[in-house]
Protein backbone atom coordinates (compact mmCIF):
# COMPACT_ATOMS: atom_id res chain seq x y z
CA UNK A 1 0.00 0.00 0.00
CA UNK A 2 2.85 2.37 0.88
CA UNK A 3 4.38 1.99 -2.60
CA UNK A 4 1.15 3.09 -4.17
CA UNK A 5 0.88 6.16 -1.98
CA UNK A 6 4.47 7.15 -2.67
CA UNK A 7 3.90 6.90 -6.40
CA UNK A 8 0.79 9.00 -6.12
CA UNK A 9 2.66 11.68 -4.20
CA UNK A 10 5.45 11.73 -6.76
CA UNK A 11 2.99 12.11 -9.61
CA UNK A 12 1.40 15.00 -7.75
CA UNK A 13 4.70 16.78 -7.20
CA UNK A 14 5.87 16.30 -10.78
CA UNK A 15 2.54 17.68 -11.93
CA UNK A 16 2.95 20.84 -9.88
CA UNK A 17 6.52 21.23 -11.14
CA UNK A 18 5.18 20.95 -14.65
CA UNK A 19 2.68 23.68 -13.93
CA UNK A 20 5.48 25.96 -12.78
CA UNK A 21 7.73 25.30 -15.75
CA UNK A 22 4.80 25.81 -18.08
CA UNK A 23 3.99 29.16 -16.48
CA UNK A 24 7.64 30.18 -16.65
CA UNK A 25 7.75 29.22 -20.30
CA UNK A 26 4.77 31.41 -21.08
CA UNK A 27 6.20 34.32 -19.13
CA UNK A 28 9.49 33.95 -21.00
CA UNK A 29 7.64 33.83 -24.32
CA UNK A 30 5.85 37.07 -23.55
CA UNK A 31 9.02 38.75 -22.34
CA UNK A 32 10.94 37.43 -25.30
CA UNK A 33 8.62 39.18 -27.69
CA UNK A 34 9.17 42.49 -25.97
CA UNK A 35 12.92 42.00 -25.63
CA UNK A 36 13.17 40.99 -29.24
CA UNK A 37 11.26 44.04 -30.36
CA UNK A 38 13.53 46.27 -28.31
CA UNK A 39 16.61 44.61 -29.76
CA UNK A 40 15.26 44.95 -33.29
CA UNK A 41 14.26 48.57 -32.75
CA UNK A 42 17.76 49.52 -31.70
CA UNK A 43 19.33 47.91 -34.76
CA UNK A 44 18.88 50.74 -37.28
CA UNK A 45 20.63 53.18 -34.95
CA UNK A 46 23.47 50.79 -34.17
CA UNK A 47 24.08 49.85 -37.79
CA UNK A 48 23.96 53.45 -39.03
CA UNK A 49 26.29 54.47 -36.25
CA UNK A 50 28.66 51.71 -37.30
CA UNK A 51 28.50 52.92 -40.89
CA UNK A 52 29.30 56.46 -39.89
CA UNK A 53 32.25 55.29 -37.79
CA UNK A 54 33.46 53.11 -40.62
CA UNK A 55 33.27 55.99 -43.07
CA UNK A 56 35.04 58.37 -40.74
CA UNK A 57 37.83 55.99 -39.87
CA UNK A 58 38.28 55.06 -43.51
CA UNK A 59 38.67 58.71 -44.46
CA UNK A 60 40.99 59.33 -41.52
CA UNK A 61 43.34 56.72 -42.88
CA UNK A 62 45.53 54.25 -41.04
CA UNK A 63 47.95 55.43 -38.42
CA UNK A 64 46.73 58.99 -38.60
CA UNK A 65 46.50 59.05 -34.85
CA UNK A 66 43.11 60.41 -33.98
CA UNK A 67 41.49 60.13 -30.57
CA UNK A 68 42.81 57.53 -28.18
CA UNK A 69 39.56 55.58 -28.20
CA UNK A 70 40.25 54.81 -31.83
CA UNK A 71 44.02 54.64 -31.95
CA UNK A 72 44.44 52.78 -28.67
CA UNK A 73 47.01 53.38 -25.99
CA UNK A 74 49.79 52.08 -28.19
CA UNK A 75 50.12 48.97 -26.07
CA UNK A 76 48.27 45.75 -25.44
CA UNK A 77 49.55 44.51 -22.11
CA UNK A 78 46.46 44.90 -19.97
CA UNK A 79 43.22 43.46 -21.27
CA UNK A 80 39.85 44.25 -19.83
CA UNK A 81 37.06 41.75 -20.34
CA UNK A 82 33.48 42.85 -19.91
CA UNK A 83 31.51 39.67 -19.39
CA UNK A 84 27.82 40.08 -19.88
CA UNK A 85 25.39 37.46 -18.60
CA UNK A 86 21.90 37.34 -17.17
CA UNK A 87 20.70 38.21 -13.69
CA UNK A 88 18.71 35.03 -13.38
CA UNK A 89 19.18 31.37 -13.99
CA UNK A 90 16.66 28.83 -15.26
CA UNK A 91 17.64 29.57 -18.82
CA UNK A 92 19.47 26.43 -19.87
CA UNK A 93 23.06 26.78 -20.92
CA UNK A 94 22.79 30.49 -21.62
CA UNK A 95 24.94 31.78 -18.76
CA UNK A 96 27.23 28.78 -18.76
CA UNK A 97 28.01 29.20 -22.45
CA UNK A 98 28.92 32.85 -22.10
CA UNK A 99 31.02 32.11 -19.03
CA UNK A 100 32.79 29.34 -20.89
CA UNK A 101 33.59 31.65 -23.78
CA UNK A 102 34.91 34.19 -21.29
CA UNK A 103 37.05 31.54 -19.61
CA UNK A 104 38.55 30.46 -22.91
CA UNK A 105 39.36 34.05 -23.73
CA UNK A 106 40.93 34.65 -20.33
CA UNK A 107 43.09 31.53 -20.61
CA UNK A 108 44.12 32.53 -24.12
CA UNK A 109 45.15 35.99 -22.93
CA UNK A 110 46.93 34.61 -19.89
CA UNK A 111 48.83 32.15 -22.06
CA UNK A 112 49.92 35.08 -24.23
CA UNK A 113 51.33 36.73 -21.11
CA UNK A 114 48.77 39.52 -20.84
CA UNK A 115 47.33 40.93 -17.68
CA UNK A 116 43.58 40.41 -17.48
CA UNK A 117 40.99 42.45 -15.63
CA UNK A 118 37.31 41.61 -15.55
CA UNK A 119 34.14 43.62 -15.24
CA UNK A 120 31.06 41.48 -14.92
CA UNK A 121 27.59 42.53 -15.98
CA UNK A 122 24.82 40.39 -14.57
CA UNK A 123 25.02 38.22 -11.49
CA UNK A 124 25.20 34.76 -13.01
CA UNK A 125 28.44 35.16 -14.87
CA UNK A 126 30.06 36.59 -11.79
CA UNK A 127 29.06 33.54 -9.77
CA UNK A 128 30.54 31.18 -12.31
CA UNK A 129 33.81 33.05 -12.78
CA UNK A 130 34.24 33.86 -9.10
CA UNK A 131 35.93 30.58 -8.23
CA UNK A 132 38.81 30.83 -10.62
CA UNK A 133 39.23 34.51 -11.32
CA UNK A 134 37.94 36.55 -8.39
CA UNK A 135 41.34 38.28 -8.09
CA UNK A 136 40.84 39.76 -11.56
CA UNK A 137 37.46 41.31 -10.83
CA UNK A 138 37.57 45.07 -10.74
CA UNK A 139 33.89 45.96 -10.98
CA UNK A 140 30.39 44.63 -11.35
CA UNK A 141 27.29 46.07 -12.97
CA UNK A 142 24.04 44.95 -11.41
CA UNK A 143 21.20 44.87 -13.91
CA UNK A 144 18.53 43.50 -11.58
CA UNK A 145 16.92 46.94 -11.28
CA UNK A 146 17.11 47.61 -14.99
CA UNK A 147 13.81 45.99 -15.95
CA UNK A 148 13.71 46.83 -19.64
CA UNK A 149 15.51 50.15 -19.45
CA UNK A 150 19.13 49.45 -20.22
CA UNK A 151 20.06 52.84 -21.62
CA UNK A 152 21.25 54.45 -18.34
CA UNK A 153 23.26 51.34 -17.51
CA UNK A 154 24.86 51.24 -20.94
CA UNK A 155 25.76 54.92 -20.75
CA UNK A 156 27.06 54.50 -17.22
CA UNK A 157 29.25 51.57 -18.18
CA UNK A 158 30.43 53.42 -21.29
CA UNK A 159 31.50 56.42 -19.21
CA UNK A 160 33.18 54.15 -16.72
CA UNK A 161 35.15 52.35 -19.42
CA UNK A 162 36.21 55.61 -21.06
CA UNK A 163 37.40 56.94 -17.73
CA UNK A 164 39.33 53.83 -16.83
CA UNK A 165 40.87 53.83 -20.27
CA UNK A 166 41.95 57.44 -19.95
CA UNK A 167 43.42 56.67 -16.53
CA UNK A 168 45.49 53.98 -18.18
CA UNK A 169 43.88 51.09 -16.33
CA UNK A 170 43.81 48.94 -19.44
CA UNK A 171 44.91 48.92 -23.07
CA UNK A 172 42.28 46.79 -24.78
CA UNK A 173 38.67 46.23 -23.80
CA UNK A 174 36.70 43.29 -25.09
CA UNK A 175 33.03 42.60 -24.55
CA UNK A 176 31.87 39.00 -24.17
CA UNK A 177 28.16 38.53 -24.62
CA UNK A 178 25.59 36.31 -26.27
CA UNK A 179 24.68 37.21 -29.77
CA UNK A 180 21.01 36.69 -30.42
CA UNK A 181 20.84 34.84 -33.72
CA UNK A 182 17.33 33.50 -33.36
CA UNK A 183 15.13 31.96 -30.70
CA UNK A 184 16.99 28.67 -30.80
CA UNK A 185 20.55 29.89 -31.24
CA UNK A 186 22.50 32.28 -29.10
CA UNK A 187 26.20 32.30 -29.67
CA UNK A 188 28.68 33.78 -27.23
CA UNK A 189 30.92 36.25 -29.02
CA UNK A 190 33.84 38.45 -28.07
CA UNK A 191 33.82 41.93 -29.52
CA UNK A 192 36.57 44.47 -29.16
CA UNK A 193 35.30 47.77 -27.78
CA UNK A 194 38.45 49.79 -27.22
CA UNK A 195 40.30 50.64 -29.41
CA UNK A 196 37.16 51.03 -31.49
CA UNK A 197 36.89 48.74 -34.44
CA UNK A 198 34.62 49.51 -37.33
CA UNK A 199 32.63 46.45 -38.33
CA UNK A 200 33.75 44.66 -41.48
CA UNK A 201 30.26 44.43 -42.87
CA UNK A 202 29.54 48.16 -42.78
CA UNK A 203 28.36 49.54 -46.06
CA UNK A 204 30.71 52.01 -47.55
CA UNK A 205 28.92 54.82 -49.20
CA UNK A 206 29.90 55.85 -52.66
CA UNK A 207 30.29 59.59 -52.55
CA UNK A 208 30.66 59.84 -56.30
CA UNK A 209 34.02 61.53 -55.97
CA UNK A 210 32.75 64.28 -53.70
CA UNK A 211 34.53 65.18 -50.50
CA UNK A 212 32.90 65.10 -47.10
CA UNK A 213 32.51 68.43 -45.38
CA UNK A 214 32.74 68.33 -41.60
CA UNK A 215 31.28 70.78 -39.18
CA UNK A 216 32.95 71.30 -36.72
CA UNK A 217 36.22 69.65 -37.71
CA UNK A 218 36.66 65.96 -38.33
CA UNK A 219 38.60 65.18 -35.13
CA UNK A 220 35.99 66.97 -33.07
CA UNK A 221 33.21 64.93 -34.60
CA UNK A 222 35.14 61.75 -34.08
CA UNK A 223 35.77 62.72 -30.49
CA UNK A 224 32.06 63.21 -29.88
CA UNK A 225 31.12 60.15 -31.88
CA UNK A 226 33.37 57.48 -30.40
CA UNK A 227 32.04 57.51 -26.82
CA UNK A 228 28.54 57.27 -28.26
CA UNK A 229 29.58 54.45 -30.50
CA UNK A 230 30.89 52.69 -27.42
CA UNK A 231 27.63 53.26 -25.56
CA UNK A 232 25.64 52.04 -28.52
CA UNK A 233 27.65 48.85 -28.75
CA UNK A 234 27.17 48.18 -25.06
CA UNK A 235 23.48 48.94 -25.28
CA UNK A 236 22.86 46.65 -28.21
CA UNK A 237 24.82 43.91 -26.49
CA UNK A 238 22.61 44.32 -23.42
CA UNK A 239 19.47 44.20 -25.51
CA UNK A 240 20.62 41.14 -27.42
CA UNK A 241 21.59 39.49 -24.17
CA UNK A 242 18.17 40.19 -22.69
CA UNK A 243 16.44 38.73 -25.73
CA UNK A 244 18.77 35.73 -25.70
CA UNK A 245 18.14 35.11 -22.03
CA UNK A 246 14.39 35.00 -22.54
CA UNK A 247 14.71 32.80 -25.59
CA UNK A 248 17.00 30.39 -23.77
CA UNK A 249 14.68 30.41 -20.78
CA UNK A 250 11.72 29.67 -22.99
CA UNK A 251 13.46 26.76 -24.67
CA UNK A 252 14.70 25.37 -21.37
CA UNK A 253 11.28 25.62 -19.78
CA UNK A 254 9.66 24.05 -22.82
CA UNK A 255 12.02 21.10 -22.47
CA UNK A 256 11.37 20.89 -18.76
CA UNK A 257 7.62 20.86 -19.33
CA UNK A 258 7.98 18.09 -21.88
CA UNK A 259 10.25 16.07 -19.61
CA UNK A 260 7.81 16.45 -16.75
CA UNK A 261 5.04 15.22 -19.05
CA UNK A 262 7.05 12.12 -19.95
CA UNK A 263 7.85 11.48 -16.32
CA UNK A 264 4.18 11.78 -15.40
CA UNK A 265 3.26 9.30 -18.11
CA UNK A 266 5.75 6.73 -16.98
CA UNK A 267 4.89 7.22 -13.33
CA UNK A 268 1.18 6.87 -14.06
CA UNK A 269 1.86 3.64 -15.93
CA UNK A 270 3.87 2.35 -13.00
CA UNK A 271 1.12 3.41 -10.61
CA UNK A 272 -1.59 1.68 -12.60
CA UNK A 273 0.46 -1.48 -12.85
CA UNK A 274 1.07 -1.53 -9.11
CA UNK A 275 -2.61 -0.94 -8.46
CA UNK A 276 -3.59 -3.72 -10.84
CA UNK A 277 -1.10 -6.07 -9.24
CA UNK A 278 -2.50 -5.34 -5.85
CA UNK A 279 -6.08 -5.97 -6.95
CA UNK A 280 -5.04 -9.24 -8.53
CA UNK A 281 -3.23 -10.20 -5.37
CA UNK A 282 -6.28 -9.48 -3.23
CA UNK A 283 -8.51 -11.47 -5.58
CA UNK A 284 -6.17 -14.45 -5.44
CA UNK A 285 -6.20 -14.27 -1.66
CA UNK A 286 -10.01 -14.25 -1.56
CA UNK A 287 -10.40 -17.04 -4.11
CA UNK A 288 -7.83 -19.30 -2.55
CA UNK A 289 -9.39 -18.63 0.85
CA UNK A 290 -12.81 -19.64 -0.50
CA UNK A 291 -11.39 -22.76 -2.15
CA UNK A 292 -9.81 -23.86 1.06
CA UNK A 293 -13.19 -23.91 2.82
Amino acid sequence: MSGLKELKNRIGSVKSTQKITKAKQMVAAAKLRRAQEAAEASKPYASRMANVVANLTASMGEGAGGPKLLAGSGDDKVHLLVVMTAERGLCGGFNANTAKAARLKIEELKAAGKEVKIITVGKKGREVLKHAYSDMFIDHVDLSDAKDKFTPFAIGLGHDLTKRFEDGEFDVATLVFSEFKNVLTQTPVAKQLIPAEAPDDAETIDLGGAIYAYEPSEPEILEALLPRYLNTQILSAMLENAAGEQAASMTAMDNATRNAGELIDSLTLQYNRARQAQITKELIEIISGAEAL
Partner: protein
Amino acid sequence: MADKLHFSLVSPARELFSGDVDHVIAPGSDGEFGVLVNHAPFMTTLKNGVVRVEDNGETTMRLFVRGGFADVTPAGLTILAEEAVNLDSVSVESVQKEYDEAHRALLAEGKDGNVALEEQVAYLEDLKAALVN
Protein backbone atom coordinates in the same frame (compact mmCIF):
# COMPACT_ATOMS: atom_id res chain seq x y z
CA MET B 1 11.40 60.11 -56.73
CA ALA B 2 14.71 61.47 -57.87
CA ASP B 3 13.85 64.99 -56.79
CA LYS B 4 13.05 63.98 -53.23
CA LEU B 5 15.42 63.72 -50.32
CA HIS B 6 15.56 60.44 -48.48
CA PHE B 7 15.46 61.30 -44.82
CA SER B 8 15.64 59.02 -41.82
CA LEU B 9 15.78 59.86 -38.17
CA VAL B 10 16.82 57.16 -35.75
CA SER B 11 17.32 57.15 -32.01
CA PRO B 12 18.76 54.26 -29.99
CA ALA B 13 15.23 53.29 -29.03
CA ARG B 14 13.72 53.17 -32.50
CA GLU B 15 13.50 54.53 -36.00
CA LEU B 16 11.23 57.57 -35.81
CA PHE B 17 10.97 58.40 -39.43
CA SER B 18 12.10 57.12 -42.75
CA GLY B 19 10.82 58.39 -46.02
CA ASP B 20 11.18 60.83 -48.91
CA VAL B 21 10.67 64.52 -48.27
CA ASP B 22 11.44 67.85 -49.91
CA HIS B 23 13.40 69.71 -47.31
CA VAL B 24 14.76 69.13 -43.82
CA ILE B 25 16.00 71.82 -41.47
CA ALA B 26 18.17 70.66 -38.59
CA PRO B 27 19.91 72.35 -35.65
CA GLY B 28 23.62 71.89 -36.32
CA SER B 29 26.02 72.72 -33.51
CA ASP B 30 27.46 75.51 -35.68
CA GLY B 31 24.04 76.77 -36.68
CA GLU B 32 20.82 75.63 -38.24
CA PHE B 33 21.09 74.20 -41.74
CA GLY B 34 18.71 73.01 -44.40
CA VAL B 35 19.16 69.99 -46.61
CA LEU B 36 17.60 69.61 -50.02
CA VAL B 37 18.00 66.74 -52.43
CA ASN B 38 21.47 66.30 -53.98
CA HIS B 39 23.19 68.04 -51.12
CA ALA B 40 26.97 67.65 -51.01
CA PRO B 41 28.32 65.06 -48.53
CA PHE B 42 28.37 66.66 -45.16
CA MET B 43 28.55 65.64 -41.54
CA THR B 44 27.91 67.62 -38.42
CA THR B 45 27.08 67.28 -34.77
CA LEU B 46 23.71 68.54 -33.60
CA LYS B 47 22.61 70.47 -30.58
CA ASN B 48 19.26 70.21 -28.81
CA GLY B 49 16.63 71.61 -31.08
CA VAL B 50 13.86 71.07 -33.55
CA VAL B 51 14.19 69.22 -36.83
CA ARG B 52 11.61 70.47 -39.30
CA VAL B 53 10.48 68.42 -42.22
CA GLU B 54 8.92 70.22 -45.16
CA ASP B 55 6.94 68.78 -47.99
CA ASN B 56 5.24 70.77 -50.75
CA GLY B 57 6.11 74.00 -49.01
CA GLU B 58 4.45 73.01 -45.75
CA THR B 59 5.97 71.87 -42.50
CA THR B 60 4.72 68.32 -42.14
CA MET B 61 6.57 67.26 -39.04
CA ARG B 62 8.49 68.74 -36.15
CA LEU B 63 10.78 66.52 -34.15
CA PHE B 64 12.76 67.51 -31.14
CA VAL B 65 16.22 65.96 -30.97
CA ARG B 66 18.62 65.80 -28.10
CA GLY B 67 22.05 66.14 -29.63
CA GLY B 68 23.43 63.66 -32.11
CA PHE B 69 24.74 63.63 -35.66
CA ALA B 70 23.55 64.43 -39.10
CA ASP B 71 25.10 62.62 -42.00
CA VAL B 72 24.39 63.75 -45.54
CA THR B 73 25.39 61.38 -48.31
CA PRO B 74 24.23 61.03 -51.91
CA ALA B 75 21.82 58.43 -50.54
CA GLY B 76 20.10 60.98 -48.33
CA LEU B 77 20.12 62.48 -44.88
CA THR B 78 20.45 60.40 -41.75
CA ILE B 79 20.07 61.90 -38.32
CA LEU B 80 21.34 59.87 -35.39
CA ALA B 81 19.75 61.43 -32.34
CA GLU B 82 20.50 60.51 -28.76
CA GLU B 83 16.87 60.94 -28.03
CA ALA B 84 14.06 62.25 -30.19
CA VAL B 85 10.37 62.93 -29.86
CA ASN B 86 7.72 63.98 -32.30
CA LEU B 87 6.44 67.31 -31.02
CA ASP B 88 2.90 66.37 -32.02
CA SER B 89 2.98 63.34 -29.75
CA VAL B 90 3.78 65.08 -26.47
CA SER B 91 1.86 67.60 -24.45
CA VAL B 92 3.20 70.62 -22.64
CA GLU B 93 1.75 69.29 -19.38
CA SER B 94 3.56 65.96 -19.45
CA VAL B 95 6.88 67.61 -20.32
CA GLN B 96 6.33 70.17 -17.59
CA LYS B 97 5.72 67.35 -15.14
CA GLU B 98 8.87 65.54 -16.18
CA TYR B 99 10.79 68.76 -16.03
CA ASP B 100 9.57 69.51 -12.52
CA GLU B 101 10.54 66.04 -11.39
CA ALA B 102 14.00 66.23 -12.89
CA HIS B 103 14.47 69.72 -11.53
CA ARG B 104 13.49 68.63 -8.04
CA ALA B 105 15.84 65.65 -8.26
CA LEU B 106 18.63 67.99 -9.33
CA LEU B 107 17.97 70.35 -6.44
CA ALA B 108 17.92 67.41 -4.06
CA GLU B 109 21.36 66.38 -5.31
CA GLY B 110 22.80 69.65 -4.09
CA LYS B 111 25.21 71.99 -5.78
CA ASP B 112 27.58 69.58 -7.44
CA GLY B 113 24.88 67.16 -8.51
CA ASN B 114 25.52 64.73 -11.30
CA VAL B 115 26.07 65.84 -14.85
CA ALA B 116 23.56 63.45 -16.37
CA LEU B 117 20.76 65.00 -14.35
CA GLU B 118 21.82 68.51 -15.31
CA GLU B 119 21.76 67.51 -18.96
CA GLN B 120 18.34 65.98 -18.51
CA VAL B 121 17.02 69.23 -17.04
CA ALA B 122 18.55 71.30 -19.82
CA TYR B 123 17.06 68.97 -22.40
CA LEU B 124 13.59 69.13 -20.88
CA GLU B 125 13.86 72.89 -20.66
CA ASP B 126 14.70 73.13 -24.36
CA LEU B 127 11.94 70.68 -25.21
CA LYS B 128 9.44 72.74 -23.24
CA ALA B 129 10.48 75.91 -25.03
CA ALA B 130 10.14 74.18 -28.38
CA LEU B 131 6.66 73.00 -27.50
CA VAL B 132 5.40 76.41 -26.49
CA ASN B 133 6.53 78.01 -29.74
